[in-house]
């Protein structure tokens, strides 16, 4: 891949992520200050009557946006090499927020998900995998096994990005196929993260593994 192509792809990637993160920020801002009946919560009355759901919902919403934003620059080689302390500390923040708050609260919310058992399983699975990938990535970093750390962080962030892809697919389906709202929701609750993980695995296989193989080959 020559330099020009790489630059184009990188710019598209960063511009898209920043734009959609901005939209996610707008969505998050709707929930500040705490209001039990705004936006999404209007159709979650029974769940919101329970205190543990209230706690899970608001802690999830307030931390996930930080997790999303913090991860944007973590994949930049330039920043990692030149400002290693930024990579390390933002990384610690990412791991802390996901493992302690965002993933467990996501799991609790999954138990009350709209759309029946179908979506509940999907969101529950997402929360568990998110925890596992992030935890594995942390462990490999501690062991200084950087290749595996990179791979698992790609998987973890792929799941973080499912917040964006889920909404994007919903937008696409609503404006093209115009399926009924809950049917759409059940579809995107799976599509949102499976799609991301598939892309992540393909990316790992073709770009990460190949480069690392080349790297180790040259060493000898």
């Amino acid at each position: 891949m020559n330099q020009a192509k790489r630059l184009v792809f990188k710019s598209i990637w960063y511009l898209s992520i920043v734009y959609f993160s901005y939209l996610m920020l707008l969505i998050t801002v709707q929930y500040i200050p705490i209001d039990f009946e705004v936006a999404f919560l209007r159709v979650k009355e029974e769940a919101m009557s329970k205190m543990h759901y209230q706690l899970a919902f608001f802690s999830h919403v307030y931390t996930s946006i930080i997790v999303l934003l913090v991860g944007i620059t973590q994949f930049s080689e330039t920043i990692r090499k030149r400002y290693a302390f930024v990579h390390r500390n933002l990384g610690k923040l990412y791991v802390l927020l996901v493992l302690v708050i965002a993933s467990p609260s996501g799991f609790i919310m999954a138990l009350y998900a709209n759309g029946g058992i179908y979506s509940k399983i999907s969101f529950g699975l997402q929360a568990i995998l998110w925890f596992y990938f992030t935890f594995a990535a942390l462990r490999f970093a501690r062991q200084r096994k950087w290749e595996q750390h990179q791979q698992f962080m790609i998987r973890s962030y792929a799941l973080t990005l499912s917040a964006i892809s889920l909404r994007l697919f919903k937008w696409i389906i609503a404006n093209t196929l115009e399926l009924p709202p809950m049917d759409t929701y059940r579809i995107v609750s799976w599509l949102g993260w499976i799609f991301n993980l598939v892309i992540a695995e393909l990316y790992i296989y073709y770009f990460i593994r190949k480069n690392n193989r080349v790297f180790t080959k040259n060493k000898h």
Partner: protein
Amino acid sequence: MKNLFYLLFLTLFISNCKDAIKNSEAKIDIEKGTAIEAEDAVIEETSNMAQRQQQEQAEKLKAEEHLDLIGFWVGYFERDSEADILFVDEGYIWNRENKINIAIDQIDGSNVVGHSVVAGNDRPFEGEMISEEDGSYAFTVKEPGDDRYDGIFTFTIKDSELIGTWSAYKKIEIPRRKYTLEKKTFTYNPDVMLEGAKEYVDWTKKIQTKEKVEMAENEFDEWISTQFASATSLIYTMNASNRLLEKSEVENLQKGDLTIIRNTIYARHGYSYKNRPLRVFFDAQPWYIPVHSNIKGDFTEIEKENIKLLLKYEQNAAEYYDTFGRG
């Protein structure tokens, strides 16, 4: 170069306001005479109740005679002049007719008192009745005149059929109407279901898409397809008046269905619609009789709960269905 980049970012930020995540201007239509607002309901209810009590008293005072003339006469208020018909699409036109209820409340000698309900208007009238030789009755009744759409009804009742014309005082779009009505009684029936009559098409909100179609080599025609909000066949199966609806049945409904199912509650109470697409839809239902222009105090407990539930999802659908926001 860096500054240009930052400027680009800034404009990107500013240009994308909240509309990206929700339709912030989305409003759902709640007919004026149907809103359940706690405080309003009490005030409206009392004035409504007073009105109703007066009517009921008036009916009690009526003489034993002419019982066959007193009551609701229902049918179509058709245009009797050259006015444009509304052409929405092939298969959906509206001849500007509205269902009307001419209610004769009291006949005292040759004096007639009553009211008419049509297109969301509930207007009183008063006038004269003459008994003809052939057994028919000729009426001439006038509306007060302080409303834009007031006029004078001239009709004859013969052999259980009421035929007549109406003429407006002021210069309005359709100044003359004609009608042939039948006597009907209105009873509130929570079990009555919608029948397959006219379809629901909201022609006031449309989405137009243009498409260039190649008809012959290098010859293109521009086809414009128009889409209106409509309802699905689910509206014929769901009754929001005789049972509590579950969240699971309501959450997957599209906006058109939510609107119709909610408004059918009002139609069962004889609500007369100001909103035209809704009016045209319910007028076509054979059981529908416009009786009241204000039904705020009439809902049963089941209906109040269902209305609240349906409105929640309707509002959600309006604001969030086709945007990036989750909703």
